[in-house]
């Protein structure tokens, strides 16, 4: 580098001397012909021409000029920016907002949709599901028998493995803890292609009863339970009171499925190994190289069809399959929201660019003289464009740097989009959004591209007819009309895009208000929830389960501040649900109505304040010895008997031997949250249909957190080894369940606000600039008798068409684009006329206000001052 500079310097000196020698020789030749010295020299110079240009062109022949020009341009650009700090700060801040917002959204997209999954060739991993046509289950679980046939008959997968979720209670130290675990078939880790960090994974024989008390720990569990001790392998942990040997630890990135703390071998029970109706397995498969997911799908469908023919009794309605790539499975429902955000943030960046381009164009007017002088001194057009672009790049890079800082803060704001506690398989579990190399590269690329985008038009514009201003007594506005047209076009585009963003923001706002205000069917205020899994090794009989719940509930009810306490199997909003087929007695078919079932204790309805519509609620007398009864939701009652009263009728419930009598109908409870249509359908008395998953719902007089500790103690008083999990206020659940929608609304609202602000600033800038340039003309008009009202009209008539045109384009764009957000909206149509009109009105009003301010200033111009200004 230094050598290069040194050589460059020498050559520069040589070039100077060469020129000087030429001039001297030319002068001497003229002297020899008898001219006087002064004339001789000036004639020689005249003949020689533009020395600066000549040197410039000659230097170009040496090559390697690029770097030299770049350093020159950068220094010059920095000087220009320092001379005008207000402009520089405005431009950099505008760009920083645009680039920062983009980088933040991109880092989320990068984390959720793009980041490679921590498995070998993860693109070849697919999840395989049954498809029950009769029930409309498109992702049905798979029975061990079907799975065995799938695995042996297919030719498209390299490997196929099965898993199912299990719950364990980890005891032996501190408070007992409920653990989310998965039972993996022995080859599961192999199909995923991840090797353990320590130890090893399961051997096939460890699927056998008696040999299956081994566990592989997740990295987090290993850290928490063993403090990262490398000797953990070989030690025992107590799961459900039985010792399990730790045989391996998985690396930190491995977390499949989300939340899983440890894995145990999948052992198929004797019943499940004989009945194809035991569908509880989740299947993961690895495609053979070169096989597409479509090919695999058609092969799996033909296998399912064959099985349906062979075993019509069990498989008649299971004659197709569903294949979902692991990537889609993991990103799930958040994908469309992220794509909408990505699109919206691109719009924001466009508006930011347009604003900066506007600033540059306005500044170009002020720099005409400078450009003219540079051009006269021999700067070519391309050279000028390059200089301007270098300045844009400086702005863009500075904006990008500030934007990166904004983005790292912004990702923290976006993190709540992925609620941490609700176990919702539709949304990925993410606990941090890293700014990795891809994000940095993205920010850099965006900065560079935007620099060219906002800088090119002003640069081309400023360099056309660069030398004109020098010729016209230094006053004319070279290319002024063209520049104004360009700026006007930019403003129209800004207004149009802002309208699209504002409309999107308005729609998501309404959708969120609709969701958050929608009736869930219960009152979450003052309700505390806890969840226990009663382990089967300890609670072997129904009577033991019933006794446990009775004693625990009576302990909790005795606590001061507790109004009511009940239990339910699948707590609403927790993301869990169970389905059973329900039919009128004697009318059972495979196409039974499927209903979310819950086994509840009598006070559950009171604790959740679920209203009784007709009949009665459960009472203590509905115990294991009484005739079986059920309470239905309004929705299910109507589905079973649309036109008649179901009270007193008997229904068959899948899994129950005897029909149950409907004794009451209660209000509909949204099982999975306001956006879902899933309703808790049928309630059965806990003492008649006990279930090992027991969720407590405790209504307190005051803040429910105040009774949390005491309520757990009440459970431990009954069973000191019982793990109590999911202790939280019901309100937190109602908030988390709409977290993605809330973030979408907030972020789109923020973008809409930014867009509105920038569009208004853009309009203001153009009008104010034009007023400044026309001060003279306005002065003349006023001197000739124009009143201030006329001037106001004159200036407004320049702004009004721009705003209206922008709004018109914006409305057209809204109609075209809003269908992409329609899948994210609840309770509001994508083409909601009120929202559109409101957004258009708000935008037009603010933009006209932005015109009015400079117009009023213009109308108060003192003609004398304006003319003297000349």
């Amino acid at each position, binding site marked *: 580098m230094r050598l290069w500079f040194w050589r460059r310097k020498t050559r520069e000196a*040589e070039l100077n001397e060469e*020129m000087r020698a030429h001039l001297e020789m030319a002068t001497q*030749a003229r002297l020899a012909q008898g001219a006087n010295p002064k004339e001789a020299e000036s004639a020689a110079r005249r003949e020689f021409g533009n020395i600066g240009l000549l040197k410039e062109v000659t230097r170009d022949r040496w090559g390697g000029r690029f770097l030299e020009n770049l350093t020159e341009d950068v220094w010059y650009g920095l000087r220009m920016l320092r001379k005008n700090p207000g402009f520089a700060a405005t431009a950099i801040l505008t760009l920083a907002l645009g680039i920062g917002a983009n980088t933040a959204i991109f880092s989320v997209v990068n984390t959720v949709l793009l980041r490679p999954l921590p498995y070998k060739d993860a693109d070849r991993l697919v999840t395989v599901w049954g498809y029950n046509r009769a029930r409309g289950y498109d992702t049905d679980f798979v029975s061990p028998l079907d799975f065995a046939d799938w695995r042996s008959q297919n030719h498209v997968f390299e490997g196929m493995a099965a898993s199912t979720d299990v719950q364990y209670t980890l005891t032996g130290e501190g408070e007992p803890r409920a653990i989310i675990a998965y039972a993996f078939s022995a080859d599961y880790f192999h199909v995923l292609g991840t090797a353990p960090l320590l130890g090893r994974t399961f051997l096939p024989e460890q699927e056998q009863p008696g040999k299956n008390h081994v566990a592989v720990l997740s990295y987090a569990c290993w850290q928490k339970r063993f403090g990262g001790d490398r000797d953990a392998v070989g030690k025992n942990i107590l799961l459900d009171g039985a010792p399990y040997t730790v045989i391996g630890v998985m690396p930190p990135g491995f977390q499949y499925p989300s939340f899983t703390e440890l894995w145990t071998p999948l052992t198929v029970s004797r019943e499940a190994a004989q009945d194809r109706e035991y569908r509880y397995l989740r299947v993961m498969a690895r495609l053979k190289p070169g096989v597409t997911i479509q090919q695999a799908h058609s092969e799996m469908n033909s296998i399912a069809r064959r099985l349906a023919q062979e075993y019509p009794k069990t498989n008649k309605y299971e004659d197709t399959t569903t294949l979902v790539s692991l990537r889609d499975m993991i990103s799930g429902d958040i994908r469309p929201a992220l794509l909408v955000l990505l699109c919206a943030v691109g719009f924001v960046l466009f508006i930011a660019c347009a604003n900066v381009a506007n600033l540059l164009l306005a500044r170009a007017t002020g720099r005409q003289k400078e450009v003219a002088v540079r051009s006269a001194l021999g700067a070519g057009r391309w050279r000028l464009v390059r200089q301007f672009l270098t300045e844009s790049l400086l702005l863009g890079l500075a904006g990008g740097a500030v934007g990166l800082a904004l983005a790292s803060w912004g990702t923290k704001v976006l993190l709540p989009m992925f609620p941490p506690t609700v176990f919702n398989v539709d949304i990925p579990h993410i606990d941090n959004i890293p700014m990795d190399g891809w994000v940095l590269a993205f920010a850099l690329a965006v900065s560079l591209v935007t620099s060219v985008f906002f800088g090119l038009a002003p640069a081309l514009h400023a360099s056309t007819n660069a030398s004109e201003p020098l010729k016209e007594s230094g006053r004319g506005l070279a290319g002024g009309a063209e520049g104004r047209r360009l700026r006007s076009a930019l403003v129209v585009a800004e207004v149009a895009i802002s309208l699209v963003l504002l409309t999107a923001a308005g729609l998501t706002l309404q959708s969120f208000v609709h969701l958050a205000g929608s009736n869930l069917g219960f009152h979450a205020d003052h309700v505390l929830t806890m969840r226990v899994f009663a382990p089967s090794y300890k609670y072997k009989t129904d009577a033991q389960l019933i006794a446990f719940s009775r004693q625990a509930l009576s302990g909790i009810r005795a606590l001061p501040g507790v109004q009511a306490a009940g239990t339910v199997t699948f707590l609403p909003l927790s993301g869990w649900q169970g389905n059973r087929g329900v039919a009128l007695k004697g009318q059972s078919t495979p196409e039974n109505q499927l209903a979310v079932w819950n086994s509840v204790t009598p006070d559950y309805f009171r604790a959740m304040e679920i209203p009784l519509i007709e009949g009665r609620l459960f009472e203590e007398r509905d115990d294991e010895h009484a005739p079986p009864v059920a309470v239905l939701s309004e929705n299910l009652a109507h589905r079973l008997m649309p036109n008649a009263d179901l009270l007193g009728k008997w229904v068959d419930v899948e899994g129950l031997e005897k029909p149950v009598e409907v004794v009451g109908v209660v209000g509909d409870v949204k099982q999975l949250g306001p956006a879902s249509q899933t309703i808790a359908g049928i309630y059965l008395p806990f003492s008649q249909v006990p279930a090992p998953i027991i969720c407590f719902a405790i209504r307190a007089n005051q803040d429910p957190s105040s009774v949390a500790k005491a309520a757990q103690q009440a459970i431990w008083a009954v069973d000191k080894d019982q793990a109590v999990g999911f202790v939280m206020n019901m309100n937190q659940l109602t908030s988390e369940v709409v977290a993605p929608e809330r973030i979408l609304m907030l972020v789109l609202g923020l973008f809409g606000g930014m867009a509105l602000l920038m569009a208004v600033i853009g309009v203001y800038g153009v009008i104010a600039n034009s007023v400044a340039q026309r001060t003279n003309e306005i002065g003349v008009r006023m001197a000739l008798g124009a009143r201030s009202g006329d001037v106001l009209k004159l200036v407004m008539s320049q702004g009004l068409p721009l705003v209206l045109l922008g709004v018109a384009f914006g409305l057209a764009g809204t109609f075209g684009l809003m269908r992409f957000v329609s899948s994210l909206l609840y309770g509001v149509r994508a083409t909601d006329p009120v929202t559109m009109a409101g957004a258009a009105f708000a935008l037009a009003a603010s933009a006209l206000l932005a015109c009015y301010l400079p117009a009023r200033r213009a109308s108060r111009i003192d003609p004398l001052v304006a003319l003297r200004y000349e």
Partner: protein
Amino acid sequence: MLEKKERYQNRIELLQGTLDLLILQTLQWGPQHGYGISVAIRSRSGEILQVDTGSLYPALHRLEKQKWIRAEWKVSENKQRAKYYQLTAAGKKQLSRELSKWSQFSDAMAGVLNPEQT
């Protein structure tokens, strides 16, 4: 504007590419500096061909970069330090190539313009 146009009309524009040939040919008679080359071309063409310095020096530096000519600082007959250019071996070959191209070109031009003479 007018003035400028007239000046251009008084001069025969050099055809694209011919400047290289003229420079190489001039250097065939021995090393010469930039001023000398322009004087030589002007006088040998009977004052018709005027080489613009704005084209001459970029061309010289380009030819030097292409290694067809070599530069050397010497003191001129008037005790003036000047940069002398001279042909290299590659430059001589290039000159003969350019010459044969030129004679082909001028024959062709002549054939088109005066068909009866051929």
